[in-house]
């Protein structure tokens, strides 16, 4: 298996992608050990992808599609906080600017990590549309931040069960709890010392946080992204 051909060998992709491809093929083949390169190459074809609308960016399928889904959301968040820090609202307290700068750095770290991991399979840079956000107004900025963070958490949690590669599931887990930390901190800025950091509207009576499926998340995110995104090849169960 160590010599199995890689679909993409450039950059970091080889390292990151070989395991998922292999596991996917093994699953498809229904066996635990396989050494046939013929089968591996056959499975590497992308000819079973559904066509997407003209001009739309297709996230792709399988774990690659899910990583691109995460990459799209992280692009959105990183672009948002970059703008927030570049043009902070009037008389922003130093501690608040620091908090938002921290979050910007985390989101850029997520974005750049996913881009590196996806390498040749990464979707292009997305064009964002923040025309609905007033960057000079604290309530508008923090309100948008809250929306993006809550959405991000629900997206990762909804995607978890579709992830095939255990390493990717762990990586998603490492990111999602940081998004939840962001969400609570932003909510704490908006309504300090209340139950709003984890409100009943988001946490059900079993103490479980809201989960959203691919379609719900993409529909909610699309108004902030000029580039049309298609998740039609993302996994289903």
């Amino acid at each position, binding site marked *: 298996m160590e010599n199995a051909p890689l679909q993409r060998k450039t950059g970091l992709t080889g390292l*990151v992608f070989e395991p998922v491809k292999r596991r996917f093929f093994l699953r498809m083949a229904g066996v635990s050990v396989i050494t046939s390169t013929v089968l591996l190459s056959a499975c590497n074809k992308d000819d079973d992808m559904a066509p997407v609308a003209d001009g739309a960016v297709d996230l792709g399928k399988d774990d690659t599609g899910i990583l691109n889904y995460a990459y799209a959301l992280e692009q959105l968040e990183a672009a948002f906080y970059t703008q927030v820090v570049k043009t902070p609202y009037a008389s922003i307290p130093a501690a608040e600017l620091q908090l938002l700068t921290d979050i910007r750095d985390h989101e850029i*770290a997520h974005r750049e*990590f996913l881009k590196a991991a996806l390498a040749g399979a990464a979707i292009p840079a997305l064009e964002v549309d923040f025309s609905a956000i007033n960057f000079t107004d604290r309530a508008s900025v923090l309100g948008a931040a809250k929306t993006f963070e809550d959405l991000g958490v629900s997206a990762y949690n909804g995607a978890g069960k579709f992830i095939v590669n255990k390493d990717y599931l*762990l990586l998603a887990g490492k990111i999602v*709890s940081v998004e939840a930390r962001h969400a609570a901190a932003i909510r704490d800025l908006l309504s300090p*010392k209340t*139950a709003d950091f984890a409100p009943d509207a988001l946490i059900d009576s079993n*103490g*479980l946080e809201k989960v959203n499926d691919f379609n719900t998340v993409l529909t909610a995110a699309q108004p902030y992204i000029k580039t049309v995104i298609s998740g039609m090849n993302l996994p289903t169960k």
Partner: protein
Amino acid sequence: MNLFDIFGKLEKVDPELGERVSFNRRKMFGQLTSLAAAAVPVATATLLKKSYAGPKDAITDVLNYALTLEYLENKFYATALASTVIPAADKAVFTQIGKHEQQHVAFLKGALAANAAAEPTFDFTAKGTFKDVFTNYQTFLALSQAFEDTGVRAYKGQAGALMGDDALLTYALQIHAVEARHASVVRRLRGQKGWITNNDGGGTPAAIYAGEDNVSQGGVDITTLELMAGTKISKNAATEAFDEPLSMEQVLPVAKLFIV
């Protein structure tokens, strides 16, 4: 299978565990350095795995492990809310956190049904180390942060073990995110950032933050990536941006400090 069986196995493999834990108990706050890393040898992990028959047992163990951590948190907040340690201004936050922990206990007990582990007896002073936990708000906050960050890391460490069961995996992820929200808001009440910088636990037991200073993700060193043209992502940001998991073998000795 319950948690005490797990403890029993740990002690059988590592008879000095109890001793080491007791010794550490006598140490002051913040000096429990590398407890989890040092106390449990790799062999223990292997033996634990061998002693369980099948995947169903393994899932029951994971759920009972989660339940025990939730029992601990639930009892901790219930006790604090019944005392006067929490200032009135911060009660709303801890009432909400306490409610969630209670819901998690009920939910996991429901899922485990007859297989649910019994609630242990807790000693939140850890045999006197944290004597003022329910009279000194700062001590209470520090332990709260410690429990919440441990919870986040512990659930994360079990995600892979639940991959075979979509519903359970999703439930675990849903609880995991709620614990992370708790951790963030408690850290802020302590005057800390909502996220973990390097392996700095802000005076809480260091074992809880072991490995949080990792900057390598999926073979990528995050500090080599660009923040913007000409600037790399800082080590602080690289460690804050990714929460690290803890294994059961790392968490249990910490939990055991608080179990009679």
